[in-house]
Structures are given as structure tokens and as C-alpha cells.
């Protein structure tokens, strides 16, 4: 049985624009179909917003919508409760068609306290819905959020459809009906109440959430019961409280998706799975060495649980050691990987340089975050491109890849390993915080369909012919002779090596030769041509890289819907660049390069191709938005 306090009048807690009222009154409850919806759950760090968002995502995926998510949380583990600094949020964008980004501006904001409202209000467009726990708008909480006057009283919300629900009161009375449930349990279940209500509004499947709650809290039956009832109460509240909840919004499942089995995946998991897949396809044991750093630690956590796949993880004493351990493992014939974020990349430079000189496989993953220095550890950016390309002393070219979407991290990780192993080289894979934390549906590939990676270890040499550690094959790659290979003992190191024999050499012409061989090897890496998605007669090309692909795709789509012509291409290989890039660049009158930095790719393109590309730069610690891309294109097409 559900307990509701009687609402004293139908209009209680009800602020709504005239048009919204008109929409609802007299015509019964709203039943609306929409192509796409953006929901943002926001609350204090302790309010369980990530959990609510995650559950909503899973239910939405099972409901057959395309989706993209974006969690956002404070850097402080326990930021002062109730303050704007402590607000944590989770945004879900879902649609009945293919979508590209987590959405710019929410259609529905769930605000569990005044700080959550304050932190997010400016991003809402007029007409958006706000669901809030009005019990949380106490004097004290308003003060902590920095509100002198309650936004519920001063008309600040007049442009929005506001659902003021006394969640705390409702849940406290709900707890009274559960043997052993405390008021604390009731407080903690507010997120599930909100989730239930939002699930009703958007008509999401409930089974999956119910099952999840049962499994998650199976050891604490009272908490399970509290959460289950809270979720159902939220759902029922939507169904029954006509005065407050306008009605339901339906987003139909996507129709034109490729056939197959899907799951949702975030960039971290996709990267981990990609590395494991690479380990399987190469028969090399995966050794991941890492030092804890936000946000890359998640990859360490994920792989640390993968013992059944033979993954060896090592938490190193520092970033330098992590890179060194990965390189040591590769030297021994394993697949050595190290993962970090910006500040850690600074420290790995010397090991990457050594790996370039040793010409051994090594994969270094940089989950970029806002810098410089500690910067904003929980905010995204893609400003490590120039460091990845050039951030080592000496002539030290290294292949650099960039993942473009959460699910694409899987392919990117496989590709990084393929290049590292085939060409005996360190490879830097650039991901970023946005990719790592965001999720989207993923058409699960079949293991058998993934291309094999042949480590091609050196065989014991013929005793009459000396082993030549720096002889090269057609790819200019040298033999990977792992310890244990009889007769192939050799000594490598950071000192310049003589061509073929690998002995230490200070010979002038040898150094020039080796420098050019190393460069030619990297420049000759097989990279697929850049594909252009372009309208016939388009004069503007948008060239992007990394995680902004979705935003660029969506921005281009919007411009096309206006009937304008534009072309778009996206780089996954940052070094070497695709062979047809010069030709692509010269095919357009103008090239616009949007990126979450101050124009790093633009600089590279200008230097490499003498093309006067324009830069659309954004460094706000937030992903690019489709609306910004749209505006930028419109500005160019003027």
C-alpha cells in the first residue's frame, strides 16, 4: 500500500506557465510523442544521482531507444553537502532515431536540492520541466546553495513547468510502513522515488530496475524494500497525481538500427574490453600498469577484475614506474599497457621515448582531462594532442590515435595494439573524460570477426648467422626477440644503436639513418583513408577528432535540416594522418576545426598542409554542444 499525504489543494507546489496550464486543463492528461528527450538528474554528491541516471539509462536502452549519457561530478570526494560545488549530475539523451551527443540542454531537470537547481538552471530553455523535492528547499539548504530568496517564491522558475513534490515527507511516511526502516533509509531512497516518477513520465520499462534493486540490496532486505517501494511510489505518483504531473511523453524505439545484439557501454569499459580482445586476438597476456589518477583509474579498476582473462594489473608506485613496468612486460613478450590522464602523461614521456628507441610495443592511454597541471580533474578536454605528438625530447615520432565515441573506444584500443605490435612501437591512444564516463548502445562484435594480431616473435636464429636485432622487415619493424629465445641474446638500450647489429653507435651517418628509419616506420603505418560525409557542392568541411564527433555530427545534421550544404570528416589517426587528408582539405573552400582546446589540430593542419583552416575552440571543461557547432557552421556560411 502506498501512503501519500493528502495534498491540501490541487495547486499546491504548482508553478506553471499559462501555456502549459492550457495544454493540460480540460483536455485530460497530456499524451505526447517526441523524437528525442534529454533528462538530467542533479543532486548532492550523496543523493545517488549517478545511480538513478545509470538505471534510467539501462531501462532506456532496453526500451529500444538510441541514447547517450554524460555524468558530471565534483572533484572533491565529499564536497560540503548542499553546496553548488557538491552537485553531481547525470544526463541522458534518448531518441527514436540515431543520436550523437548527450544533448545540450535538458528537457527535464531533476533537482534534489537548491544547489542542484542553482547549478543547472542556467542551462535550461524556457518550457523545460523541473522536478524538485520541495522539502529540500529549507532555509538552511537555500543558504548553503547561496540563495537569499527561495527560487520557488521569487518567480525565478516562471518560464518552466515545475513539479514540486514533497519527496522527503512522502518517503518518511513510506518508511513508517516498513519494519526496521529508518528515516535515513527514507532519505537515501529519494533518488529511486525520483527515478520512478521520471520513469513513469517517459514510460520506461520497470522490470529491469526492480530486478536491479532486488539484486543490488539482496543483503539488506530493509533497504531493498525501502528502495523498491520508493521506486514504485514514484511511478504511482506520476500515474495518480494528475494535478502536478502533466502526463506522459513517449519516445518510440529506433527503427533503422543494424540488426544484432546490443548493450550499453561507456568508454572505460569499451577500452578495457578492446584491450582484452586484443590480448585474445594476439595471444599476448595483457599486463596493465597504472598509478591512480582521475579519471583513468576506472580502467585499472575494470581490468583488475579481469583475472579470468589472464589480465595482470599492477598498481605502480608512480606514473613513471607504471610506464616502465608496461614496457618491461612488453620486453618479456606480453602486451604492456599503461593508462593515465594528463599529469601522468607528463611523467611517461621518458619511457615513451625509450620505447621509441628500443622499438618495442607499448600502449599508453591518455584519458584527457582539463589542464594545465592538476587543472580540473573531473572535467573533460582534448588538449593533450600536441603533447602526444611532440612531447618528447629528440626526434621521437610516435603513432597517436584518438577514440571518437564511448563504444568506439573498443575499436580504438584494438587498433592501438595492432599498430604497437605490428610496428614495434609505442602508441598513444587519446581518450578523454567525456568518453570514459559517457555511455551509448553498442552493437556487440563477434570475437571471430575481429582481425587477428600476429606478434610474430623472432625465432631462434641460425647459429651461423649472427642475430641482428635491428634488421627490419617491409614495415621497417625490427624483430621482437623475447628473452628465452635461444641464440638471440642481444642488448638494447636508450643509447643510439647501429643499424642492423644494434650495437651502441655514435656514428654521425648512422644516427641520421636511424632517425630517418624510425620516422619512416611511423610515417608508413597503414592508416585507412579519411571518409567524408559531404553534401554535393558543399564548400565548408568540418574536420574533427576525438570525442567531439557526436556533437559535430549532430550540429551538421541540424544545419542540413535547414537545407544548407556542409561536409564533415573525423580523424581517428592523428599520427600518421590519413594519406588522402591533403586532397580532402584542398577540396573545400573552407575548413572549420572544432576542438576542445585552443586550436591544436588546427595548428598541426596548418603546419603540415599549409591550409588556412579555421579553429572553433572551446575550453570550458565541457564537451562541445551540437548547438555550438550549428552556430559555428552558420557563422561560417554567413
Amino acid at each position: 500500500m502506498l501512503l501519500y499525504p493528502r495534498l491540501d489543494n490541487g495547486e499546491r507546489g504548482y508553478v506553471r506557465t499559462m501555456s502549459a496550464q492550457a495544454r493540460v486543463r480540460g483536455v485530460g492528461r497530456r499524451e505526447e510523442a517526441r523524437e528525442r528527450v534529454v533528462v538530467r538528474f542533479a543532486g548532492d554528491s550523496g543523493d545517488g544521482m549517478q545511480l538513478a541516471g545509470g538505471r534510467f539509462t539501462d531501462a532506456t536502452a532496453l526500451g529500444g531507444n538510441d541514447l547517450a549519457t554524460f555524468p558530471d561530478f565534483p572533484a572533491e570526494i565529499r564536497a560540503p553537502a548542499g553546496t553548488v560545488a557538491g552537485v553531481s549530475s547525470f544526463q541522458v539523451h534518448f531518441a527514436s532515431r540515431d543520436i550523437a551527443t548527450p544533448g545540450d540542454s535538458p528537457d527535464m531537470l531533476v533537482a534534489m536540492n537548491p544547489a542542484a537547481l542553482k547549478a543547472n538552471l542556467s542551462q535550461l530553455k524556457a518550457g523545460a520541466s523541473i522536478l524538485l523535492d520541495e522539502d529540500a528547499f529549507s532555509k538552511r539548504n537555500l543558504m548553503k546553495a547561496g540563495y537569499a530568496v527561495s527560487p520557488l517564491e521569487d518567480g525565478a522558475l516562471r518560464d518552466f513547468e515545475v513539479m514540486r513534490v514533497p519527496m522527503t515527507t512522502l518517503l518518511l511516511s513510506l518508511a513508517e510502513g516498513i519494519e526496521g526502516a529508518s528515516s535515513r533509509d527514507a532519505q537515501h531512497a529519494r533518488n529511486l522515488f525520483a527515478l520512478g516518477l521520471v520513469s513513469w513520465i517517459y514510460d520506461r520499462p520497470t522490470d529491469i530496475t526492480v530486478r536491479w534493486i532486488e539484486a543490488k540490496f539482496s543483503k539488506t532486505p530493509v533497504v531493498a524494500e525501502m528502495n523498491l517501494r520508493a521506486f514504485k511510489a514514484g511511478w504511482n505518483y506520476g500515474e495518480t497525481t494528475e494535478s502536478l504531473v502533466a502526463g506522459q511523453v513517449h519516445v518510440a524505439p529506433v527503427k533503422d538500427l543494424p540488426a544484432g545484439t546490443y548493450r550499453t557501454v561507456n568508454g572505460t569499459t569499451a577500452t578495457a574490453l578492446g584491450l582484452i580482445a586484443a590480448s585474445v586476438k594476439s595471444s599476448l597476456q595483457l599486463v596493465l600498469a597504472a598509478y591512480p589518477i582521475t579519471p583513468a583509474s576506472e580502467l585499472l579498476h575494470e581490468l583488475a577484475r579481469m583475472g579470468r582473462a589472464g589480465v595482470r594489473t599492477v598498481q605502480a608506485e608512480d606514473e613513471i614506474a607504471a610506464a616502465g613496468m608496461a614496457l618491461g612486460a612488453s620486453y618479456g613478450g606480453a602486451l604492456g599497457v599503461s593508462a593515465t590522464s594528463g599529469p601522468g602523461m607528463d611523467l611517461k614521456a621518458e619511457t615513451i621515448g625509450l620505447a621509441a628507441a628500443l622499438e618495442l610495443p607499448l600502449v599508453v592511454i591518455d584519458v584527457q582531462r582539463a589542464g594545465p597541471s592538476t587543472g580540473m580533474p573531473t572535467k573533460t578536454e582534448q588538449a593533450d594532442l600536441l603533447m602526444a605528438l611532440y612531447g618528447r625530447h629528440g626526434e621521437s615520432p610516435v603513432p597517436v590515435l584518438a577514440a571518437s565515441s564511448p563504444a568506439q573506444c573498443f575499436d580504438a584500443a584494438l587498433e592501438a595494439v595492432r599498430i604497437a605490435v605490428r610496428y614495434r612501437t609505442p602508441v598513444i591512444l587519446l581518450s578523454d573524460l567525456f568518453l570514459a564516463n559517457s555511455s551509448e548502445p553498442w552493437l556487440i562484435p563477434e570475437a571471430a570477426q575481429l582481425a587477428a594480431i600476429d606478434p610474430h616473435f623472432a625465432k631462434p636464429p641460425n647459429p651461423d648467422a649472427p642475430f641482428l636485432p635491428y634488421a627490419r622487415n617491409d614495415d621497417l619493424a625490427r624483430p621482437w626477440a623475447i628473452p628465452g629465445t635461444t641464440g638471440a641474446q642481444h642488448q638494447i638500450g636508450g643509447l643510439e644503436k647501429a643499424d642492423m647489429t644494434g650495437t651502441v653507435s655514435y656514428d654521425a651517418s648512422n644516427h641520421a639513418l636511424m632517425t630517418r628509419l624510425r620516422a619512416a616506420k611511423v610515417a608508413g603505418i597503414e592508416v585507412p583513408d579519411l571518409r567524408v560525409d559531404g553534401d554535393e557542392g558543399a564548400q565548408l568541411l568540418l574536420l574533427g577528432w576525438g570525442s567531439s564527433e557526436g556533437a559535430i555530427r549532430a550540429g551538421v545534421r541540424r544545419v542540413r535540416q535547414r537545407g544548407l550544404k556542409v561536409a564533415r570528416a573525423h580523424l581517428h589517426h592523428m599520427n600518421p594522418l590519413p594519406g588522402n587528408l591533403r586532397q580532402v582539405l584542398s577540396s573545400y573552400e573552407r575548413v572549420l576545426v572544432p576542438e576542445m582546446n585552443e586550436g591544436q589540430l588546427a595548428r598541426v593542419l596548418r603546419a603540415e598542409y599549409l591550409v588556412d583552416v579555421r579553429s572553433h575552440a572551446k575550453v570550458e571543461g565541457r564537451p562541445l554542444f551540437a548547438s555550438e557547432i550549428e552556430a559555428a557552421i552558420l557563422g561560417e556560411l554567413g
Partner: protein
Amino acid sequence: MRTLSKADFQSSNETRWCPGCGDYAILASVQAFMPELEVPPERIVFVTGIGCAGRFSYYMNTYGMHAIHGRAPAIATGLAAAREDLSVWVVTGDGDALSIGGNHLIHAMRRNVPVKVLLFNNRIYGLTKGQASPTSELGKVTKSTPGGSIEPPANPIALALGAGATFVARSVDRDKEHLSGVLRAAANHEGTALVEILQNCPVFNDRAFEHVTDKREASENRIPLEHGAPITFGAERPRAVVRLPDGSLGIVGAEQADAAAIVEHDAKRESPDLAFALSQLGDLTHGPVPLGVFRDVEAPVWGQTIASELRAAATRFGERELDELLHNANTWRIS
């Protein structure tokens, strides 16, 4: 297995240390000792850092990696994680191990990684032409300390013990027999072995250890540590190491030493307290110095149980298992 000799471990690379450098003697001793391991050269790896000692790997006909400054212990740790079938040795110097690479050395020892670390201590930076090193003595005049070093030296033995090293020993470059004995003990030890080798740098810090290596003086200045034996030394002036009333260790003339108070060396003792007290004994610059194995205790070796299990798991984990893993989530079908 074929019988191995010293020649099997000599590489064809030309050795390029300065004439008279202590490194030659150490190299010869190590090459001569290697056959005792009964491990073929292709299963032995020397990982070295930067500095004169770092060149060591080029001169061994084993697998070798001359790595970057200070990082050899980390790289060797990664190698050991991937390959428990190898005999892995690190060669480092006082600057490499204790200055730029201090953190890696500490943590390799703390973890008890199956790696043997040979730390050549010449108390100077040789390759960079004579600056003070972390083991240079207070007041030492070098190019970087023209007014004399104002820093007290690091004590590698104490540092290793503090880091929890399970095997800690000290030997000296010019005593092949002693060095071979210590190498043997280190090789027999299952976890990390830290061997400090006092090494003469005739170019920048000549005779730093003359008092320990000179035939006449040596017997007066070496305090031999032998497990189970009372610690006594000195041919001309017999002395003994005794436990003083305040609990610390001291050196007294043998004639004044109460036999009961003479300390009996116990390298196998779980607690590192005796080893630490011995590390504080004597005077590395002028006086008597303990030589031998300070500590040799059994402890779980890093990754020993999991390494082979994980490699077996990696072998078993094929495409079918990968497919299962990829599907291990809420999935839905679109047809």
C-alpha cells in the same frame, strides 16, 4: 643442459670503462659466477639504469636492456610480472638507485619482486664527470660541491632494510671470492636481493674504499657478517661487536669483550633490528665496515602465486570466452 662457462656470458661488445675502474672486476666476477646459476644465458636478463654501471648489460651475453635513469627496478618489475621463468638482474649505481630512482628501488624491495639488484656504490657521479652523489660523504669536495658537500650521505643498507628488503648484503669490487659468495647467496634468495658493491672510481673518487680493499688494511677494516658466527674481526687488533648496555651495538677490543656480550650474527631473523643496527656500525669513509649478508629472510615473493595462474588463464581465455565477456551485460536484440 650444456655445461656453461664464464665465456658463455661474455659478450663481444668492447668494454669501455676507464682503465682501472672497479666495474671491470665486478663484471669478471659476475661472468665467472653465472655458470653456477645453471640457467642458460637466454633465460637471464640484465636491466640497467644510467651511469657508468648502466653499461653493464652490454657486456653480458645474456638478454640486456640499458634503460633510463633510475627506472631499471620498475622495468625489471614489469618483466618479472610477465615472465616468472627468467632470472632477472638489475645493475645500478648510487646516483641511479638512490637519487633519481629511489622510489622504484624502495617499492621493488617492498614488494619483494624476484629481482637481484647489484648497486655499485662509488660515492660519486662518474659518467657526468664528478658531481657529488647521494652517498658522497659530508664535506666531500666535488665539481658540484666546491665548498664541500653539506649533505649527509644516504646509507643504502639502512634504506633497503627500511623498505622491507628481504635480502640485503654488502661486498666489494676487488674481492672476487667475497663477491661470489654474496652473489651466490643473493641468487639463492627468492625475492628481491639488494647487494651493495663498494666500487672504486679511480678517475673521480679514487681510493674511496682503500681501507677495505688494501691487503694490509683490509683485515682491520672488514667486519665479516657470517650467519651464526660471533662478529669479530681484526688480525693485528682483534675486536668484537658487542651489545652495549644501552642496547646499541658497539665495537670493542676483543680482550675487553665479555664472550657472552659478543653479538652472534643472525641474518635469518624475522625482525630487521639486528641488521639495521649493523648497518649503522663502523665508518664507510675511514673505518671498519660490515661486509656480507645483513639480512636473508623468507617472505612471499611478489606475484609468485598469481603469475603462473594468470598466464594459464590468459591461455585458456579464447574467442568463446571473449564473446561471453562482451555479452556480460543487459543486452537486447534488434532484428
